[in-house]
């Protein structure tokens, strides 16, 4: 930052302050805000890195047209209202959406924010060879055009009952055309300066960026709300582990906010007793679940392992076994041991928003060892002298894999013991997360390959619409050697009736109808026992007791309303 620019900034601040009334003259009055993310931010361009930490970091600087609030409702940010069919913003055929930008919004370098920037952002992500990580948000987009400097029209190739993919939520914010115009496609990674110091419309702007370490921000003098942000500067420090991050807010008070504290609940509770900070949590759509492998996953199956060619899984192909495994689990105990405030027992694939949450499967909420045993007895699984049930050659001996994480290993141990009571033997295995979720086709330990009988992990969907998430369980999404193990249908579920419902959902516009179909699909998955949902997981963070205005949000960036955070007086 040159002296000249500093001077300009200072005079701009003075102007802004002069224009505002004295009551509003609170921008930057609260000193420094210190935020701690135990995964450090690598880059502030979400199109080049879709990591959660990177999205959150960039959300302090660059903004989408609309965000989700803490209840999952869309709130306009750079527009005056959310386009709907009712107000004419969404076309009747559901194939286009028109956003009207607010007047007078400026970039942090003082230039005007226009429709050109929005159009450019779409071009930027859709440019070939760019490796844009948010491309899924622009799927089916055929054209993005600026009708006038304040109007953007997005056209889709197919009817979109939920047209709020592009430019809504922290995943697809608007980049400044002037700054990024030479960074299209293959050149994107070379614009280090722009990627580290993007101009934005958000409350802060970057003064110094140390990748994977710490970012320094200052209040954006051109921010559209006169008295925001309340903090003059902000620091976003990264690195370390979740427990020590919690300690820095709750016990030593060195930081104001710590993100994503997946630590055993009693540790957090003990730290919170120091009184320096408060634990905050919120629920989105994350479900910790067990995926059940319908195919033979043993090494004996060779290359066909875990695919249809390997034949059915000797134990898990029996619906009675799948159901018994589910009702033998005491989900509340798992919550108590590993999640505390940040977990609720669930029996659903789609646990939220409320209109999509089914209640048809709540039978699984109560642990019932006796019925589980009876189910297995009736199905012909005979208890052996070693405490393990067998039926013919098949033995209820399962390999149970998950990623390495102390809470998950705790859950694994608990589930192993619960299953022991119904005569199921479990071999636990854990794999480094970067391998497990890495998807390297050469590795046998990825969750897509599923070289085990049971797998535990969590997944969710961004935003509030489950259509794409549910579509991930269609037959053509099954990972296999033919498609390079790419595919979201980890449990290899395949039912033509389900595929039909998915197609129906894609063509339905009315919210109540969509909810009904989505619930029906959810229930099909659970009824089939293709997965065993365990816990509806929330996000846990900690804020300093002196920090006001935090509205914990699982639908968008946790820093979505950082502009209105303030220091308690």
């Amino acid at each position, binding site marked *: 930052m040159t002296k000249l620019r500093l001077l300009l900034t200072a005079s701009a601040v003075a102007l802004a302050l002069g224009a505002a009334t004295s009551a509003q003259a609170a921008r930057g009055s609260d000193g420094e805000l210190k935020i701690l993310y135990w995964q450090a931010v690598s880059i502030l361009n979400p199109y080049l890195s879709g990591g959660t930490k990177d999205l959150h970091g960039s959300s302090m600087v660059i903004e989408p047209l609309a965000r989700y609030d803490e209840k999952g409702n869309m709130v306009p940010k750079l527009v005056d209202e959310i386009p709907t069919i009712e107000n004419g913003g969404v076309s009747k055929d559901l194939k286009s959406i028109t956003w009207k930008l607010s007047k007078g919004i400026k970039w942090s370098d003082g230039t005007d924010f226009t429709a050109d920037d929005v159009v450019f952002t779409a071009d930027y992500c859709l440019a070939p060879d760019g490796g844009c990580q948010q491309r899924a948000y622009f799927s089916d987009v055929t054209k993005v055009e600026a009708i006038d400097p304040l109007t953007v029209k997005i056209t889709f190739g197919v009817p979109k009952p939920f047209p709020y993919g592009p430019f809504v939520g922290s995943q697809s914010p608007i980049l400044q055309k002037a700054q990024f115009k030479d960074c299209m496609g293959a050149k994107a990674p070379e614009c280090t300066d722009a990627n580290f110091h993007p101009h934005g419309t958000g409350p802060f702007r970057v003064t110094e960026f140390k990748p994977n370490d710490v970012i320094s921000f200052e209040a954006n003098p051109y921010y559209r709300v006169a008295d925001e942000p309340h903090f003059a500067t902000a620091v976003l420090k990264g690195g370390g582990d979740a427990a020590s991050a919690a300690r820095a807010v709750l016990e030593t008070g060195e930081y104001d906010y710590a993100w994503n504290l997946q630590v055993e609940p009693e540790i957090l509770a003990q730290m919170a007793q120091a009184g320096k900070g408060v634990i905050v949590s919120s629920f989105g759509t994350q479900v910790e679940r067990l995926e059940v492998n319908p195919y033979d996953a043993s090494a004996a199956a060779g290359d066909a392992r875990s695919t249809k060619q390997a034949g059915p899984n000797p134990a898990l192909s029996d619906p009675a076994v799948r159901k018994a495994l589910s009702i033998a689990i005491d989900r509340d105990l798992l919550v108590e041991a590993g999640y505390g405030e940040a977990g609720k027992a669930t029996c659903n694939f789609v646990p939220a928003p409320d209109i999509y949450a089914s209640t048809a499967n709540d039978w699984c909420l109560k642990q019932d060892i006796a019925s589980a045993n009876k189910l297995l007895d009736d199905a012909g699984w005979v208890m052996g002298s070693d405490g393990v049930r067998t039926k013919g050659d098949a033995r209820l001996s399962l390999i149970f894999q998950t990623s390495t994480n102390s809470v998950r290993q705790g859950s694994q141990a608990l589930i192993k013991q619960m299953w022991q009571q119904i005569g199921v033997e479990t071999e636990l295995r854990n794999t480094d997360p970067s391998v497990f979720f890495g998807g390297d086709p050469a590795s046998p*330990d990825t969750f897509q390959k599923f070289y085990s009988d049971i797998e535990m992990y969590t997944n969710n969907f961004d935003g509030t619409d489950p259509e794409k998430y549910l579509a991930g369980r269609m037959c053509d999404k099954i990972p296999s050697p033919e498609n390079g193990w790419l595919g979201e249908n980890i449990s290899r579920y395949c039912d033509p009736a389900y595929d039909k419902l998915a197609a129906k959902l894609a063509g339905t516009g009315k919210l109540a109808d969509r909810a009904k179909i989505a619930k029906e699909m959810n229930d099909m998955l659970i009824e089939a026992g293709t997965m065993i949902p365990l816990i509806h997981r929330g996000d846990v963070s900690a804020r300093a007791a002196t920090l006001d205005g935090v509205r914990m949000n699982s639908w968008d960036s946790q820093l979505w309303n950082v502009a209105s955070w303030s220091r308690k007086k």
Partner: protein
Amino acid sequence: MLNYTLRRLMFAIPTLLVISFIIFALLDLAPNDPTGNLPLTIPPEVREQIRQSLGLGDPFLIRYAKWLHQFFVNEPLNILSQITGADIFESADRLRIRSWATRSPVVDLIVQRMPQTLWVVGMSYVVGILIAIPIGIISAHKQYSIFDQLGTFISMVGFSVPTFFTGVLLIVIFSVKLHWFPSIYDTNHEVTDWSSFVFQIRQMFLPVMVLALYNTSQISRFVRASMLENLNQDYVRTARAKGVKEKTILLVHVLRNSLIPVVTVIALGVPTVFSGAIITEQIFRVNGLGQLLITSIQGGDIPVVQTLTFIFAVLIVLFNLIADVLYGILDPRIRYD
């Protein structure tokens, strides 16, 4: 000796090339992936496009050749043009080695991380050596005295308790209970005057302590063993018989001879200073080279891991050479030729 050094240096080049190839092959084989840490909401086909855009679609040998060219030609030229300030050989068009996570040049990342690693890890090494040598000498001189027993006990405990535990313990005692030292290292802090220097010392204190305990334990054991070895040698007995003062024997004759193997151990340890202290850097958020390495490994960021480990390899080969040369100079009994 000069001859030997030159011959070794010549040997070093093919050695390093082989090492760089093996590291590259190893990283290529390793199953962790650059998209592994991305949210699962990013669909598989987008992940595949990301991999392609990172150049993972190219054959292995081409990627290796590219890296070699970037590391041995482009980066040195770039440094050269930065030093001279002149834009020689169209530096703007040269492809630099870029991290996959930050998309910025790897060399810039390393330069950025160097200060905190040298401050914290380097300092702990120096502190460790300075404490270890006197402890080792006294322990050996007064073998089985209370000092020796205590020294042995503390250094063994120091060595056997891992840093992931001592770090947490020190934070709980000194940051949480006593509020004496910060638990998080501020990499933005600049030393400009006395009070900022004091702050720098305060924030370095805990990580340096944790690491120094470990280093001291290790080095003092070697000093002690080596001293004991020499104290039993005939020349010591001869000197004693001749009536040379015990102090002179100990500090001049024995120490000189005992430090020979210790120097090797110390020289061999220097590269580990640069590779940082992964766990300690993580706990205190020093975010130096060790943290860069571990986050890059976990994130499957091959360009960073490859470049960093190769630089470590260069340092290792170099310091092994230095150790050998020092050995030859210090110990007249060794003849390499």
